[in-house]
């Protein structure tokens, strides 16, 4: 399913020696000494975080509110730039690669509040990232239908977000994250707005997708159940990994 070549697309190649242990040697994603300082409020959100995430791994980042876990996910996903340190994708610093291409082709984001476009139907929402993907125009809608079926939502194609339950909305958001066959799925509190039944379903779906697609899954969560389902848990406190 995944069409990614060995190296990141649109990347200025530069070999970076892995400094950490064995996991780092095969890491798809690596953070080195990440620092994030927000001038607004003079907040030190991250204080020298280093981590490595292996290809195909399921990692849960946990910790209390304000500990910096969402900031860390945003830095790993290239949505924000670190004040210090660097993020490497397959050994290449994000600062040196085409971030738009990285977002479009390598990363799928799932957000707590879904961020679906309210004027678009489920099928149309799933197609949004495909504008930057390799899909011909006529192939986008069938692909979106297929993705919605894959996430267990085959009968809500023509529904707008307002006509869906929160669990269904999150399924649409997950289908959208898969639109361009990413390598990484980064989810920020994906079950945070869901009841326990929906939470279980979404967690099962994510785990299932990870296995079927060989995805690397990184989830920021407060939920002990979600954390327990992960291969590895990274606990954070006060901007650092504990």
């Amino acid at each position: 399913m995944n069409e990614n070549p060995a190296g990141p697309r649109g990347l200025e190649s530069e070999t970076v020696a892995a400094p950490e242990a064995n996991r780092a040697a095969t890491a798809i994603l690596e953070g080195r000494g990440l620092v994030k300082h927000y001038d607004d409020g003079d907040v030190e959100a991250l204080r020298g975080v280093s981590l490595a995430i292996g290809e195909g791994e399921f990692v849960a980042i946990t910790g209390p509110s304000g500990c910096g876990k969402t900031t860390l996910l945003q830095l790993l996903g290239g949505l924000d730039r670190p004040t210090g340190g660097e993020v490497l994708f397959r050994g290449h610093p994000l600062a040196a690669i085409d971030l738009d291409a990285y977002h479009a082709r390598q990363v799928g984001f799932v957000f707590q509040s879904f961020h679906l476009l309210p004027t678009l139907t489920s099928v149309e929402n799933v197609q949004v990232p495909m504008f930057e993907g390799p899909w011909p125009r006529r192939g986008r809608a069938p692909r979106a239908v297929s993705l919605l079926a894959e996430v267990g939502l085959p009968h809500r194609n023509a529904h707008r977000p307002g006509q869906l339950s929160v669990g269904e909305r999150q399924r649409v958001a997950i289908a959208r994250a898969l639109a361009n066959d990413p390598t990484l799925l980064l989810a920020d509190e994906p079950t945070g707005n869901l009841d326990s039944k929906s939470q279980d379903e979404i967690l099962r779906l994510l785990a299932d997708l990870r296995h079927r697609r060989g995805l690397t899954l990184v989830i920021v969560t407060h939920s002990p159940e979600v954390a327990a389902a992960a291969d590895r848990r990274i606990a954070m406190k006060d901007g650092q990994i504990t």
Partner: protein
Amino acid sequence: MGFITLIVRNATNRPTRTALTAIGLAVAIAAVIILVGISWNFERSFEAIYRSKRIDLIAVHAGSTNQLSSSLDARLVDRVRQIDGVSDASPTLVDTVAFEDQNLASVLVNGWVPESLLFRGIRILDGRSLRPGDDHNVLLGRVLALNLDRKVGDRLDVAGEPFTVVGTFESESLFENGALILPLTTLQKMMGREGQATGLVITAKSPAPESLEPLRKRIEAALPGVAVTPARDYVLADTQIRLAKAMAWATASIAMVLGAVGMLNTMLMSIFERTREIGLLRAVGWRRRRVLALILGESLAIALAGSVLGGMLAAAGMRALTLSPTSQGFIDPRIPPEVLGLGLIMGIGLSMLGGLYPAARAAALDPTEALRHE
């Protein structure tokens, strides 16, 4: 889903706001088309008078800004005819009269010598033309005859004097179609300007520009105090036409700026409300140029709707003006294609300009901050 579908979906998401913006733009575009169209038709109608009569040069009193304010001795025409290179010449007296019963406030009345070159391009529709010896006989332009509801043989009071309609005519010029023609001597007496003309019209033996200029100089040298101008230059230099064009452009420009500001306001509000959506688009890999294209595309969609509506409003507006008593007979309701194109291009261009800043702002949004936007 195509990109255009997405643009249209976004543009119609707030139908009331989009409709109001399009209507505002339509009014601006209609204003441009109507005002510029009127001044354009005004100029072309004026030109048509001289072109249809093969008039090459016009002589007026030096310093006069238009023919109505000029006064010349009509007998000068005999001297003009003697000048080498002149084929024909004729005096003309122009004034305006009112027909209050018909709500016609300002109707052009021409005093012409019967059978003179001024009757070229005049096609008699009914009755006959003026003849030497006619005194209180009048020719009515087609539009004026309709507006006055007069036909051949009817009586018509002009400035308090009784006239008999001996013919109706059609001209290439809307001005003449909305005007009346009296014998020159009759009009001179009525206006208390015996022996006077507002100008002389001259046909050259050779209308080529290289021979017109020496002829112009020869006539001016022979007639001190008289300014001679090529017909085309005379039309372009006419104060009333220049004023009409300047007013049209000034008013149209203000309307267009207001239209563009309306678009700016709408699109700024739109991107402010959709900040998180735009953040999402950036997060899923949309390049800045695609976000820019999306917002500009939405501006274009509204501009196109406004343009179509504006064109229709302009056509209706031009028709309505022809029914107004003050402009009846002076307004050509046809919209020149050049003016229609100009209005649409200006409308779309300025709308895009109005959408450019919001689009640039949207494209520059930081995805993380945009997604956090409340």
